[in-house]
């Protein structure tokens, strides 16, 4: 039985090394890019939307009651419309610090701000 490299042709090596090169380049590029603060939205237990906090977004999030609309802009991530009766989620105001949470309880939508540079935050949890 011949070992793999005895079987492989020059063409094989070309393909394998090219693919590995693409993979390694991709990994290096991703590792080097500075990771920004992210907005992570979960519906029930599923993550349904992830975005960078420093890019503007406007998105509809689906829940059992309907669509909760989330806007991400300079003020942070905030809810602009939601099918819930009391609109508590809208009055929660913008979330932009690591650990901030917004939620539309009736529509089961939860928004949290996550930042990799958590060690730089002055506190771990906020008492309010």
């Amino acid at each position, binding site marked *: *039985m*011949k*070992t*793999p490299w*005895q*079987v*492989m*042709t*020059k*063409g*094989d*090596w*070309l*393909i*394998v090394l090219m*693919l*590995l090169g*693409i*993979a*390694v*380049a*991709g*990994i290096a*590029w*991703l590792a080097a890019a500075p990771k920004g603060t*992210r907005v992570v939205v979960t519906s029930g237990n599923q*993550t*349904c*939307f*992830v*975005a960078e906090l420093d890019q503007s977004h406007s998105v509809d999030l689906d829940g059992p009651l309907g669509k909760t609309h989330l806007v991400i802009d300079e003020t942070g991530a905030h809810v602009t419309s939601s099918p819930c009766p009391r609109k508590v989620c809208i009055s929660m105001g913008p979330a932009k610090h690591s650990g901030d949470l917004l939620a539309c309880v009736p529509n089961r939508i939860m928004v949290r701000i996550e930042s990799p540079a958590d060690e730089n935050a002055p506190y771990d949890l906020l008492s309010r």
Partner: protein
Amino acid sequence: MTCSAADAEKLARARRQVFLALFIALAVSLHILESLLPSPIPWLRLGLANIMTLSALYLYDGRAAWTVSLARVGIGALLLGRLFSPGFWLALTGTIIATSVMIIVHRICGRHLSPVGVSAAGAAGHALGQVLAARLLIIQHEAIWQIAPLFLFFTVFSGVLTGWLATVLLQRLGQHPAFQTAGVVFDGQAGKD
């Protein structure tokens, strides 16, 4: 030795059907065996069943490869109880792209490659297909592409492994009278088309 049934063409077709059925059965068995092994990342597996897809491609043609790969995905999912689960769609998309890539690569540069190269290309296609399906079905956001390079890295190695195993298998099978016409012999030089 040879059966007295009709002509060589009908015999060849009958043989093809029987062997493809056997390949499918083997592929499904390999798939199920593999699913029992632990894996750090779900859906990241060696893809040993691909050995049979490769064998079908080399011993017969692209259509045979489609038959074996699609049947394996369907029957495998059925037996494991994962039919139409999210994992099933990932596997299906991956397999479709992988098989397409393998057939194209085999057709275009099969002369310069052994099954290892074809398999590696197919493995890359499989990874791409899985990430694409995950992006469409599970995590509706670009962040999912971040695992693609890492995924690709590992699947290249598994592709080489299965390609090598397929080569070993093909060399043995190629020596059997039933497959003489296929002319598959690999020794580090160009494989025959």
